[in-house]
């Protein structure tokens, strides 16, 4: 297992925060005992910066340079996580990519749209590219209840498979010259996908994402009246300090609204299964507890 940590900012004390302690706090309400799970964690090898869901949460070039220094000084590898970008977004991020290539040439970029991949291939051919989890479509509706339902073998595979599990996807990756895939657990599927493809795989934990969009409900808590519920170009980022629980009696999974995205927290047993499989299969695990 290779452990990575998604950070929003460089810690004030310059020390990487404690993952086991934070993970336990995320599951306080469950009474789960994560002793064995946390013992399985290797030291953090990589830092993730950026955001998959919102371009307004990307670091500035100055912040990115500081992350590059922080990682270099600690022998940590660095990944820049990118959201889906429009043409204007790509123009804007060109300087960010340039700064990354200069400060940390061996850095990895996780792209979540094809345009970003092709842009980087064209302008920074040496960059290590992975495809992010927004490419990976699967059945993630947390409202599904399997109780009282006949789960046929076909439905079972449907709940356990996603875009990345199809052999044709290897051809997509080959065309785009991408070597890694990033994903999260499907809420109703097997613990870890049985993919036959031979690519580096990374899993986010302890949250999977359900849905996202450019209209951000959290941002409306920072807006003046009359400016709400539209695609915005600037934001005071209330998401840095504010996130929500979403509850509905019919839904057993714990849902979180963080920024413009709805996430579900992996049940403890699924999380333990993920860590075990990641250990066996040498997957990368990315801890996002501090970032969400």
């Amino acid at each position, binding site marked *: 297992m290779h452990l990575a940590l998604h950070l929003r900012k460089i810690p004030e004390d310059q020390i990487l925060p404690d993952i086991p302690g934070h993970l336990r*706090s995320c599951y306080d309400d469950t009474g789960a005992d994560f002793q064995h799970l946390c013992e399985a964690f290797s030291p953090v090898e990589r830092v993730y910066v950026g955001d998959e869901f919102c371009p307004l949460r990307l670091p500035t070039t100055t912040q990115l340079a500081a992350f590059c220094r922080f990682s270099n000084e600690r022998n940590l590898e660095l990944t820049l996580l990118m959201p*889906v*970008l*429009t*043409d*204007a*977004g790509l123009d804007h991020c060109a300087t960010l990519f340039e700064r990354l290539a200069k400060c940390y040439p061996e850095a990895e970029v996780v792209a979540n*749209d*094809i*345009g*970003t991949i*092709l842009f980087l291939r064209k302008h920074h051919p040496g960059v290590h590219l992975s495809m992010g989890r*927004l*490419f990976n*479509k699967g*059945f*993630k*509706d947390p*409202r*599904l209840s399997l109780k009282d339902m006949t789960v*046929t*073998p*076909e*439905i079972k*595979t*449907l709940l356990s*498979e*996603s*875009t990345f*599990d*199809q052999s*044709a*996807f290897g*051809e*997509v990756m080959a*065309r*785009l010259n991408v070597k890694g895939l990033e994903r999260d657990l499907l809420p109703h599927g097997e613990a870890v996908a049985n993919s036959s493809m031979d690519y580096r795989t990374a899993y986010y934990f302890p949250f999977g994402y*359900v*849905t*996202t*969009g450019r*209209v951000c409900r959290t941002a*409306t808590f920072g807006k003046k009246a009359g*400016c709400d*519920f*539209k*695609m*915005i170009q600037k934001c005071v980022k*209330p998401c840095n*300090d*504010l*996130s*929500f*629980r*979403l*509850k*509905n009696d019919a839904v057993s999974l714990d*849902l*979180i*609204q963080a920024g413009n995205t709805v996430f579900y927290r992996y049940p403890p047993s699924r999380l333990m299964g993920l860590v075990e499989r990641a250990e066996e299969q040498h997957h990368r695990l990315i801890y996002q507890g501090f970032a969400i």
Partner: protein
Amino acid sequence: MKIVAPISKIEELEMLLHCGADELYCGIRIPEWEKSFGQWWINRRSPQIANILSLTDLGTITEKAHGKGVQVHVAMNASFYPRAGMDLVLALCRRLAEKIHIDGLIVSDLNLLMALSLEALPLRIHLSSLGSCFNSESVAFYQSLGVKRIILPRQLTVSDIDRLIKRSDPAMEFEVFALNDGCYYEEGYCQTSHALGAFCLTAWDMTVRQSAKRRVSDYELEKNEKKYREYQWFLNNCGSSYQQDGLPNGPCSLCWFGRFRDWGVTAVKIVGREAAFVRKMGSVQLVSAVMDKVREKASSEEIAAYARQIRNTPAYCNSGHMCYFRES
């Protein structure tokens, strides 16, 4: 620019063609699929309500539409197809192309796109809005897979659309949403299913997480919930309501038709395969009326003013929530 209209029943065909549809799109119900996958739909809309119920009906629709010079495209736009269903989907695509002679498939799943590019069937491939093409850099990739038209997502702004088209190969066609049914999340990245009802319309009890550094009062939460519901009402076709003259309310981009024409947009899409006959009729009439101005070469400003006049709901238009592609 062409008007692309939804059809789900053979009885709607004459009305849609009469009212001005230039192209039709639909889904097809496949009992074999339902037998295996139950409520997991073969395309993004309900099999019973939004889809043509038989291949025979689809054949009749296609033949009659072709008689009027109108193309028919079929949505195979589930966000992904499992391995166990892919053979069935590909066999269906072959049958639609070679036996029913439809004109095109609307696809979003990258794996299906890849498979279809190898099949080289005698039909056009349109990238569904669920394919989430957000920038011009992506366009060449889809072109390399044989995509002839890209249906742009709702969550682009008008300036995003302008930029994307200007920077793309002129050979690529673009289709934009014209009328009906907003979507709170970006549909291409929403991994929920309408089979369980719209996720965004589900009633959630929203509370601030304990770990959050900022607190929000109950009053602020209630106020936000009210605004959220109001926005949802607009997205949901203003509670599925109609104007006094019978034309349908709902999100639209009618004001922008002049610009779309000038930017080289190929087609505008009316949403709502599952809509009732009357709503479909009103929708095509409304879009056709504005399109007449486009074809008369009216200026963009004249078209925008006419669109607002014919909508006749200034308060709704002024709210901003009625607009697709809204700039901040």
